[in-house]
């Protein structure tokens, strides 16, 4: 068992513009890919890379997060030698919620002190990927890096917002800009930062002492000259899922068998909370093509180019095209849906005709009746 890296999934002020999808939940628990939640991807990547202690810095709207993660057993993080630690804000003063993430690192410094791991990997939850961190750690040591940032060369972020970086000829990051700059670079940061634990704690203390409280913007971006910050290039599937557009387009991309296999199964499996759903039932009149379907669905209508989460019911004669339908939603008979994102427990009445567009899919919030 590899105890040399500990993980932090940092949900403090996670940048996202997912509208109704995050009305009642944090970005980390936005359902994704028929049976997962966004956080499953980085969390599984860490576990598959041998990280056996992971802290999740919960911030706001984290009820669904607690429900999803439970004891960590679905990721094998509930053992004597491992652990999942969900750390919500330890404050009695609501104004402190607006403080930057370094403040939370500082608040939880005991957690870092108590863990014997030499390295720490800090990530966000909205990078949908299947990453192996061991090669990143090997490169980190080999290049004598202070910080290694997992990056991806990407020409089209499909509407997702990410930081861009510029490298010198040796893979060192010489410039990094915030999410909406104009830097001419095809390399995006996957917001995964690998460093020695003691460097992190040092950055936390010195930055806070200077009145700065954002890890990346303050502690890292301002020290690109002093610190050797290296990029480690990842070449698997990456979806930057923090806007509605990228949420929708990444789902459509996953209808491709190769993309799906790359994300869900290579190099390791993506784990998620398991549920006791029966297999999906396709009735006599069902017609399902080019779609991803989770268990527990009952399908009597037509489904094309769509993603169905667990327990979705598609009524007789209903047609669902280019849509994402989340857990336990019910589509009435003869309804027609095109380019829709339906959150959990949505009910579409019989005969309704609802069409969104590629740029602006129709969205129905959780439990909405349409």
């Amino acid at each position, binding site marked *: 068992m590899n105890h040399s890296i500990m993980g932090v999934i940092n949900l403090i002020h996670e940048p996202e513009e997912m509208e109704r999808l995050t009305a009642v939940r944090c970005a980390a628990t936005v359902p994704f*890919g*028929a*049976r997962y939640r966004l956080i499953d991807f980085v969390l599984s990547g860490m576990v598959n890379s041998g990280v056996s202690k992971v802290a999740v810095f919960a911030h706001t709207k984290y009820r669904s997060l607690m429900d999803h993660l439970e004891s960590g057993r*679905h990721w094998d993080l509930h053992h004597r030698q491992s652990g999942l630690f969900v750390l919500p804000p330890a404050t009695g003063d609501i104004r402190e919620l607006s403080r930057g993430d370094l403040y939370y690192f500082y608040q939880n410094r005991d957690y870092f002190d108590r863990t014997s791991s030499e390295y720490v990997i800090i990530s966000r939850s909205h990078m949908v990927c299947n990453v192996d961190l061991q090669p990143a750690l090997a490169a980190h040591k080999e290049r004598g890096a202070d910080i290694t940032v997992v990056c991806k060369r990407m020409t089209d972020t499909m509407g997702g917002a990410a930081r861009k970086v510029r490298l010198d000829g040796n893979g060192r990051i010489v410039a990094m800009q915030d999410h909406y700059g104009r830097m001419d670079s095809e390399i995006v940061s996957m917001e995964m930062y690998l460093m020695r634990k003691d460097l992190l704690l040092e950055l936390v203390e010195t930055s806070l002492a200077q009145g700065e409280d954002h890890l990346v913007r303050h502690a890292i971006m301002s020290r690109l000259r002093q610190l050797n910050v290296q990029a480690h290039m990842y070449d698997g599937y990456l979806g930057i899922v923090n806007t509605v557009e990228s949420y929708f387009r990444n789902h459509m991309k996953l209808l491709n*068998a190769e993309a*799906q*296999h790359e994300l*869900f*199964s290579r190099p390791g*499996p*993506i*784990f*998620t909370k*398991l*549920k*006791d759903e*029966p*297999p*999906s*039932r*396709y*009735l*006599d*009149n*069902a*017609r*399902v*093509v*080019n*779609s*991803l*379907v*989770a*268990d*527990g669905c*009952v399908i009597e209508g037509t489904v094309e180019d769509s*993603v169905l989460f667990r327990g979705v019911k598609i009524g007789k004669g209903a047609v669902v095209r280019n849509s994402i339908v989340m857990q336990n939603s019910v589509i009435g008979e003869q309804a027609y849906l095109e380019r829709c994102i339906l959150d959990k427990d949505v009910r579409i009445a019989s005969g309704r005709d609802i069409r969104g567009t590629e740029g602006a899919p129709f969205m129905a919030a959780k439990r909405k009746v349409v």
Partner: protein
Amino acid sequence: MARKEMIAMLLAGGEGKRLGVLTTDLAKPAVHFGGKYRIIDFALSNCAHSGIDTVGVLTQYQPLVLNRYLGIGSPWGLDRQDGGMSILPPHMKPKGGAWYEGTANAIYQNMDFIDSYDPEYVLIISGDHIYKMDYGQMLAAHKRTEADVTVAGIEVPWKEASRFGIMRTGEEGRITDFEEKPKLPSNNLASMGIYIFAWPVLRQFLIRDEGNRVSSHDFGKDVIPAMLNGGVKLCAYAFHGYWKDVGTIDSLWEANMDLIAERPPLDLFSRDWRIYSVNPNRPPQLIAPQAKISSSLVTEGCVIEGEVSRSVLSSGVHIGLDSIVVESVVMPNAKIGRGARLYRAIIGEGAAVGDGEQIGREGDETITVVASGERNNWGPELKEVKNL
């Protein structure tokens, strides 16, 4: 240990000979069923929903897969501080040891286990049946009739009655006759092999049966008849739901087909009596652009490129392009190549059916079985299990 009102003893050591190649390397209760279950899930889920928190699982034949599957009983809520699931294999004792010889002997050999909970009642069930049943209601009936023994019974078609233990009852359901597999059945109320015993009564009869040299140490053949002759009060508890013994290839296939009937007699989707199982973590079902699926159950991890109708597919099954699968049961991780034809086939776990191969014939009623994980070839090597 805290006293328990009722504990369950689940007989799961059966070889399941009549399932042929499907039970070569696993016990019958571990055979896959209904896409994402194993047969034993039904009895264990019934325990979970009936409020039974202490279950002894008696294993003997090929227990590896079953043991690994059961683990510490978590999927059925049986990972408890007090009680929970205990796997009970045959074992050595100071005066030697022996295999379980018959169902009653298996319980006899574990009397210590039962005594440690000092229960009022012991429920005997087996891991061979597909059904949903509230054992709590059966216990209530047992108390109401003030019986020493209650035997669950179901009416079966007369022509099948000679396959079962047949009961005749008098007033208040009191059992007057019990005949194991009678040639000329006098009734059609069949024993489901589910018993509630007052533990002191059962204990006494198990010891007596053990001393009987001509006994085969079987509940239906020996213990129940002995109790009837011994003046014990036995009552029948009539069950009116779906119940299927899946001990043969035909009945296993039929029970799978029952799940995809237009109105399935056993509802896997009802939320108040979920069947729990060990859920595999697999990606969602990938239904390719060329796929066609109707009247079927499909499970996560499947990749469907061909045509599937009236079939049950377990997790991780791959149906290749231009293949046609009809009225078949495909167990986990089986791979069906391109352009294959399956009619009334049961494909074992991890089996591979090559491109263009044909298993079973259209219009033929016979169920064809392909053994687990074996490469299937054309013609003579094909393992066929005829109707029994």
